[in-house]
């Protein structure tokens, strides 16, 4: 459990970090908490020659509101999100999702940006970020670009970030109206990663009609994804038990479900449907 030799850089500004990354597109990795990268390095499955630690850059850790948006700095820890009083009011899905990640030690050190950029297929954040239709802001030498959450997760451990780009900020439209949200997860007994995890955000009119729905599913396949058909089966409907069950039944449709030692693809797909149903029902019950 001893990593290979690497050079360690702790730039003070994002510009410096981007410049370093730009100089070493093949050999450098960005350290943003390190709860996936460091274990991989200790196993020597990852042997970056350079580590660019974002931890010393001021101003990458924040949760604030601007106009109708919630802005989250990429270096904000899971714990800071979990414990944010403001978020519990404005977007409780985020703190709820954070509370499911790893354990206390992981949440104290791991960051939302690090987790999203790593794109673990069973990570918790991608589900919430997709459900919330967040925008992700990447900084590169050519400037900034905004990537929609739907486009961000490309495949297993693969995002739309280009070499030389650093995820800087996550932007979430502040939910308005009668909003209900929920994150429901079947954790793996050993790793705590999501066997499946389902994030749901709903807005519901006063007569109980679903006005909008966001459903993100993680753990089921090689990347987190939006369950668009589930959303489609909710919007415009009155959220009763039958509607929820019918919508949730679509959760795994079209997915190439993962199999591993703990859960077959068939069981995972079933869990995706069950947890989607639970997440929708819980979110609906909270939409008051």
């Amino acid at each position, binding site marked *: *459990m*001893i990593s*290979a*030799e690497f050079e360690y850089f702790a730039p003070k500004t994002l510009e410096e970090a981007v410049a370093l990354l730009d100089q070493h597109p093949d050999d450098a990795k960005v350290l943003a908490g390190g709860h996936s990268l460091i274990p991989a390095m200790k*196993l*020597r499955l990852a042997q970056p020659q350079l580590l660019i630690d974002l931890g010393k850059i001021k101003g990458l850790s924040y949760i604030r509101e601007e106009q109708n948006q919630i802005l989250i700095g990429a270096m904000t820890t899971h714990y800071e999100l979990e414990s944010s009083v403001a978020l519990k009011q404005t977007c409780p899905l985020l703190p709820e999702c954070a509370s499911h990640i790893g354990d206390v030690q992981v949440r104290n050190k791991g960051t939302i940006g690090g987790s999203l950029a790593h794109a673990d297929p069973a990570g918790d954040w991608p589900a919430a970020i997709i459900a919330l239709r967040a925008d992700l802001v990447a900084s590169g030498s050519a400037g900034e670009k905004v990537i929609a959450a739907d486009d961000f997760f490309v495949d297993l451990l693969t995002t739309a970030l280009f070499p030389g780009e650093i995820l800087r900020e996550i932007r979430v439209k502040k939910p308005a109206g009668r909003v209900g949200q929920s994150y429901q997860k*079947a954790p*793996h*007994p*050993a*790793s705590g*990663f999501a066997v499946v995890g389902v994030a749901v955000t709903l807005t519901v009119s006063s007569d109980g009609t679903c006005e909008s729905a966001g459903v993100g599913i993680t753990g089921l396949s090689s990347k987190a994804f939006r369950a668009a058909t589930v959303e489609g089966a909710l919007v415009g409907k009155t959220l009763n038990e039958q509607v929820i069950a019918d919508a949730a039944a679509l959760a795994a449709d079209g997915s190439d479900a993962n199999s591993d*030692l*703990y*859960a*077959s693809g068939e*069981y995972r797909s*079933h*869990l995706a449907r*069950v947890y989607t149903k639970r997440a929708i029902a819980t979110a609906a019950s909270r939409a008051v």
Partner: protein
Amino acid sequence: MANKYVGQRIKRTEDPRLIKGLAHYVDDIKLPDTLHVTFVRSVYAHARINGVDTSEALKIPGVVAVYTGKDIADKLGPVPCASALPDLKVPDHRALANDKVYFVGHPVAAIVATDRYAARDAVDLVMVDYEDLPAIIDVEEAAQGGPVIHEAFGDNIAYKLTAGEGDIDAALASADHVLSQRMVHQRLAPIAMEPRGVLARYFPGEEELTVWSSTQIPHLLRTQLALMIGIPENKLRVITPEVGGGFGSKLNVYGEEALLGWIAIQLGKPVKWIETRRENMQATIHGRGQVGYIEIGCKNDGTITGLRYNVFADLGAYHQLLTPAIPTLTGLMLSGAYRIPAIQINVTGCFTNKMATDAYRGAGRPEATYVVERAMDLVAAELGIDPAEVRLRNFPAADEFPFHTATGLDYDSGNYQAALAKAKEIIDYPALRAEQQKGRSEGRLIGIGVSTYVEICALGPSQAMPAGGWESATVRIEPTGKVTVMTGASPHGQGQETSFAQIAADELGVDLNDVTVIHGDTSIVQYGIGTFGSRATAVGGTAVLIAIQKLKEKASKIAAHLLQSDASKVAFEEGRYSIHAAKAAGATEASEPVVPVGEAPAGAIPEPQTEGRTSVTIQEVALAAHLAKELPPDTEPGLSATYFFEPKNFTFPFGTHIAVVEVERETGDIKFLRYVAVDDCGKVINPLLVDGQIHGGIVQSIGQALFEEVVYDEQGQLITGTLMDYALPKASQVPLMELDRTETPSPVNPLGVKGVGEAGTIGATPAIVGAIVDALAPFGVKHLDMPVKPEAIWRIVNQA
């Protein structure tokens, strides 16, 4: 003995240093100029080694040496196996592989470097030319044939053994029902919190080798390492510093331990190796690993007539210290808590291309208990009798002890009815069954599992043990009155520094804080056997007690002399020898420290002033014995005694565990509703420690029942190679445990204790699995293999 401490919930005196991070494990011991060792380990389950090229590795700056199997072939003796079974095939097992590798993790080369980083870097540069061979992974296939691991043996069967008493065929023939079931005891990884670690230092002038190792058996290790390395045993010192758990995995002699010692001699510098968790998963022994077939015969009223168990034991590629012996413990305990007139076990021990199995907490007994308890559930289900009732009908009566079993054992004492009754009462069994019925009618799947276990502890009489079944103690009262207890048992988390101090403090009538328990250094402590098999208190604690009694015989003579009286007229009570008459008159004397701290001028310890007194403390006696100015004629100076206690029998703790679970239909998830454990481990020295042992054992049982499983794929790759995949139970997955006790003293030792280290892993597993099976009874489920995973349950519920 005044029970001021014994029986009290006394906090562990070990804990402050552990909690504060001030304890010293092997890796905390830093010697100057230490070199670091890493191992190149096989990535193949079975392969021929056509060559090992170390040249590139040697070029790495800091790399001092690289050793391969060829380098040590005629220099370091084989890794020992202490099990002596008839016709046992024992492969030549060396610290480093030579011609072939036999499992993933098999050490091929050892690298020595000036730092751990260089040593690790070099691992990737040792080029091993492997010729991949087909591997044999499944134990039942290994029994049938398949690729032969050790070619000289011709097949993969290491031994076959049949044991038991009674005519099993007649017993089964006479039964009204004969039930059979295949049962799997999956491989488990012991996962001590501290992995293995070795530090070795050689002084060439003195020709002294010191080996620090995280082991449960320092003295046995010293003997074996001396033989392997070829140095005189009295020139080898094994030190066991703090040990972060063993669970049986450190009741062993590993090739790495000998190799480090040998390398230290070669290089003349200290060498250290700290096992990584990956190595710990691959190359520290595994536990369990049995696939068995039971046949149990019963009468219509539930009376058991006989039990046969044909078991295939997955031994792995090599024998470690006790590998072949573990299934024999299973055979010994197949009678469980019951009167079974005929029992037969047929063991087929097989080599497979995996790490060796060996003792893991329970070591063969959890398998036996699981088999018997699951069998009792099968009988109950078949006959429609309540599982608790079936058990009750087969218990021996409390006045039938010592109770002889058809496995050849004589259970020392027991009252199984009492433990069962107490557990049923705590959980309100009738009401629980009613609630279960009501729940079923509402579609809830509630299950109740009952386990009434017996285990075998206090290993054991030397006749039954490979290397001595006794334990040793030396008790010494120092000139300043402090009591030093040296135990040959080598605790590694059990808290014997506390519990043995409790025994000593009460027996000597001194303050608990005046007692220090020393262990784990072969140059300080007299030879001992070690801590395993729930033996330390029953055997080692008894040795402490009797050593003190010996010491007190001498002390009373000195006391009488000091008091100018006669030994027969001097009585000992609460740390003080008094003349009868004086005591009767109610005279009291001030009790002060023998030597007040900071007041005694060096070299001039004041003589106890006993002139005209009617009593002296035992600590004053110790000082007098040390100064030796006022001793009775022909008295040896000093006050210490050593005792080696040889038990006449094992002890047999028992108890009842009841688990209540609810299975969620939709996902197959399992939720505990209640967990009650009533354990009887004889007399209790420290209830806090006993509870801790039960808690930990139950948690490991939950691990086996629900989560843990060492999995090798068909090619022999270990695919549960990290704790991300191998699921140890977490605090959040463990229910509230409602513990209680009955107390049936053991007649085998004067303390009346039985042992408790493994009870939880033995009693709990069948209760948990029984509860899940019971929950799924409406689906016709009779048995489920472990670990019972939600998906399996979901499939059962879903298919219905």
